[in-house]
């Protein structure tokens, strides 16, 4: 009996000894990255850095749906498991508000830099500051996405249409193309109106151009303003020229329609630019044009969607992490990242002759990024986007009128803010 007990105890002790001694070494960093081109680029940078400096970099890769929860759970429980994390910019206010990120300026000053390199696009740096634009710097921008307007150049020329400058142009062009392009069924427009992120991302540029604001001057929700309702009514009109079922579309469905040549226009992200010139995927090689977002009452503004890199507050290797962060966001490394189709966040790269030759849309992308606008900066963005997206999707699927949807959305956003107090 006693032998059995003893054996068990020894076994327990051994297991513990084996698993409990793994102290983080000085020359080791752990980075949380997104799966996909953006994360692959940082992974590559980590490999190169490892070869150059001997700093071992551990990569933890997660799909978009899980990255946010993994990072926030870890950061809130102060385990210090990650030394660097990739963040989608709408998540940033939540992380900054929880006070779980390291302020970067002091670390830069130690290295003789007064602040972030002025070469970074200002709009990209703004989303790294808390409070927005004016506050302290808690991240550096790594991938400079902002929305673009995609349209079929060939069809626009065929029907002598100008590149759309306003949303009215878009609606008129959608009507013309859909009515005249009867031989091969082509929809005038295609959008994503699945609840959540998709519907909101495709609606915000229309909403802003029509003069809508999510919050009024006092910070009260105001999506059901006359401008807001007019914007949603416009979206529904445009929906008549979008393929049936668009109320459940996400990025994949929109891309499928554009690549197959069955839709003529859409709001989309730069990551989809390069597939259009790939003949194995695209039936419209060389026929897609890219421009900045159309305006209406106000000039058109794209939604910014940058990937940021931050250092968690409880990282045990903040200094080493900062060294890697500065190295990875330096022009030479970011240039390597652009080869995977990731737009840079530096002006010098957007205007780099070699890169522009390879990426003809760069001038448009830079203009779009510089004039872009972030999603409302609130730590409750996930809740608000979810609720807002549900009502936008309901309006687009015909369940609610524009005014009903906006009134209900407003009430719901109000509830979220009330609870937050």
């Amino acid at each position, binding site marked *: 009996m006693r032998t059995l007990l003893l054996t068990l105890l020894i076994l327990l002790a051994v297991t513990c000894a084996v698993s409990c001694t793994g102290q983080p070494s000085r020359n080791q960093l752990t980075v949380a990255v997104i799966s996909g081109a953006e994360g692959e680029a940082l992974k590559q940078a980590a490999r190169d850095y490892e070869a150059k400096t001997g700093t071992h970099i551990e990569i933890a890769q997660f799909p978009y749906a899980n990255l946010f*929860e993994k990072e*926030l759970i870890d950061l809130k429980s102060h385990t210090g498991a990650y030394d660097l994390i990739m963040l989608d910019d709408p998540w940033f206010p939540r992380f900054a508000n929880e006070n779980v990120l390291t302020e970067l300026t002091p670390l830069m000053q130690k290295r003789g830099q007064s602040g972030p390199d002025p070469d970074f696009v200002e709009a990209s740096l703004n989303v790294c500051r808390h409070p927005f634009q004016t506050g302290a710097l808690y991240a550096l921008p790594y991938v400079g996405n902002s929305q673009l307007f995609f349209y079929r150049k060939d069809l626009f020329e065929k029907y002598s249409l100008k590149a759309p400058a306003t949303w009215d142009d878009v609606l008129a062009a959608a009507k013309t193309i859909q009515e005249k392009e009867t031989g091969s069924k082509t929809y005038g427009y295609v959008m994503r109106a*699945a609840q959540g992120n998709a519907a909101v991302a495709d609606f915000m540029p229309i909403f802003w151009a029509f003069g809508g604001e999510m919050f009024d001057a006092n910070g009260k929700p105001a999506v059901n303003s006359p401008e807001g309702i007019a914007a949603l009514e416009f979206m529904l009109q445009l929906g008549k020229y979008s393929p049936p079922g668009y109320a*459940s579309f996400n990025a994949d469905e929109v891309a499928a329609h554009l690549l197959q040549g069955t839709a003529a226009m859409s709001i989309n992200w730069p990551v989809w630019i390069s597939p259009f010139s790939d003949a194995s995927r695209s039936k419209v090689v060389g026929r897609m044009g890219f421009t900045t977002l159309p305006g209406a009452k106000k000039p058109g503004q794209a939604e910014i969607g940058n990937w940021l890199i931050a250092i968690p507050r409880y990282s045990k290797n903040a200094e080493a992490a900062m060294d890697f962060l500065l190295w990875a966001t330096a022009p030479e490394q970011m240039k390597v990242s652009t080869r995977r189709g990731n737009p840079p966040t530096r002006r010098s790269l957007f205007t780099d002759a070699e890169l522009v030759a390879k990426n003809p849309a760069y001038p448009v992308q830079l203009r779009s990024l510089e004039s872009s606008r972030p999603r409302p900066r609130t730590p409750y963005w996930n809740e608000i986007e*979810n609720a807002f997206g549900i009502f936008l999707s309901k309006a*687009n699927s015909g369940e609610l009128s524009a005014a009903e949807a906006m009134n209900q959305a407003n009430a719901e956003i109000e509830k979220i803010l009330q609870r937050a107090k």
Partner: protein
Amino acid sequence: MPRSRRFFNAQNKRELLLPALFLAPALAVLLALSIYPLIYSVTISLQQETAAGVTWTLGNFTRLFSDGFFWTAMGHTFVYAVAALTFEFLLGLGLALLLNNQIRGRGFFRASLLVPMMLPTVVVGVVWRLMLNPNFGAVNGTLKQFGINTESLTWTASPKLAMLSVIAVDVWQWTPFVFLVLLAGLQAIPQEPYEAALIDGSSRWQTFWHVTLPLLKPSILIVLLLRTMDLLRVFDQIFILTEGGPGFATETISLYIYRAAFRFFDFGYAAAMSFVLLALTNVISATYIRLLEGRNA
């Protein structure tokens, strides 16, 4: 307390040590993975994070009453569970009765019927999502072959058809399970009662109603119970097929709980909702057992 003193005497202690040691690992795992999280979730459901810090409150539970999304999601869950269960049970029972007979190709049918159940739910979700695509999906493609106008049949994108679509997929995947359990139940019924019924001159319907059904009751109870519990917490296939949309049309309570916990990081509220779901599941299960057992007694 003379009994307990006798229970813990030296002799007994030695005899108890071995079983206790055998039980210890299982108990430790149970404690760590089940009991501790349960207690922890009770705790967080009674707490709210405010600017001043963590406070003890019933706020998470009172919030349920004014949360329209919660009640709508609850409603969807019940519509989903009742509809899917009804179809799965009727189809499963029909198939089990059919394939319990000596018909040709019985083995083949039995085996092929089990395929949907063997597939991971995620795969089923993805495949059906593609098949139900309104523009290039197999379902509308087939309907078009028969000359049916599919313009308005947008399935998962239509607020009217989305719920029907997700229910149909569940029925497709889980009818085989009901069938399998009921078939096993049928095969366990001895021949004698049937012979007796035959001698007494009962009709086929009477035999089914008075012999087969009562003897199948234990299997029916098991399968209804298991399916109900599964249906009430359905998550994966809906998450993949519609993610709760369009709008909120197919959002079930599990999806809403997931969102509250992992998208909004409101673990307290998510825990509170989970306890309501747990209570309802318990009440329903107890009712089943009473109904089916009660009639037996």
